[in-house]
């Protein structure tokens, strides 16, 4: 299962890098971090093109959930902007 180990390690490193990078730029909203994690998840999943169809389906499900969260963040921001807050 080396390919699974490598996928989880790469994802963990990407998340740590995003956290360190955004913290260095003093980003102070949880939504910003979440958006970065979602993008990293989608990109790393796409790069691991050799996964079995079963693993790919499972990861797609996680990606859809994360993307759903990202869309909620976007909708809340749009509502904030339209209501003038």
């Amino acid at each position, binding site marked *: *299962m*080396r*390919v*699974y180990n490598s*996928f*989880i390690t790469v*994802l*963990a490193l990407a*998340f*740590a890098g*995003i*956290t360190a990078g*955004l*913290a260095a730029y003093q*980003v*102070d*909203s*949880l939504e910003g*971090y*979440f958006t970065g*994690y979602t993008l990293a*998840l989608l990109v790393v999943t796409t790069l691991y*093109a*050799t*996964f*079995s169809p*079963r*693993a790919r*389906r*499972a*990861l797609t*499900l*996680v990606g859809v*959930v*994360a993307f759903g969260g990202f869309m909620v963040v976007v909708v809340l921001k749009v509502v904030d902007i339209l209501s003038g807050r």
Partner: protein
Amino acid sequence: MRNPYQRLGVVLVVVGAALTPVLYFVVGSVPLAALALSTIILGLVSAMLGNARPEITPEASQMMLKTGMENLAALLEELGLRSRAVYLPSSPGNRPRALIPLDEDSSTPRTGQTPPDRLIARYGPNLEDMCLVVTTPGAVSLDSVDIASGGGPDEIDGALNHLVVGIMDLADSISVHVVRDRVTVEVVKPKLKYENIWFYRCLGSPMASIAATVASQAMARPVRIVSEEETKRGTRIEIEVLP
């Protein structure tokens, strides 16, 4: 809990879910809360990968592979076969098969020839063109991947990486080079190594068998494993594409 990925997933999700509100509301640190949030995502990924693991354990698969290989090896040794197997592409309704000529000096099977559906069969016009027809590990492995017959070198590279690296996790990566009638397959960090035993000398190692079957299927021509050698990075398999 069935496997370590699911255990890791549950631990990460629970720890992340417990820490995120504490770090956000009590400690008041957004980066630390975000880090805890990322462990929830990692946990979900790990748990889902755990669900995607095959139901048959690698140990059970290895037991079945060894049983089949030892039976076939016993048959090859008993018949005293020393010829290298010729891998044929699949025909409608049949899996790809390998022919092991009973006589080393007999002719080789030609393109378009369908593998006979018997254990011992005649494959050529001459009396001595008799062979053993066997199903190889490579032939069975093609059940889990679609290969366009006659797809060419790119098809070999893509299918081998998908099969060996992605589905079976038998190596770190694979690269394929095709020069005229030679296919060179470089396998980086393979888990199955070549051994100098009768079975491997005749049919090739399981890794070479998979490579030869995929090459035969993608080129739509018979192929033969010429050599397998250890390199610094892994194994180099030379395959000859027959006319």
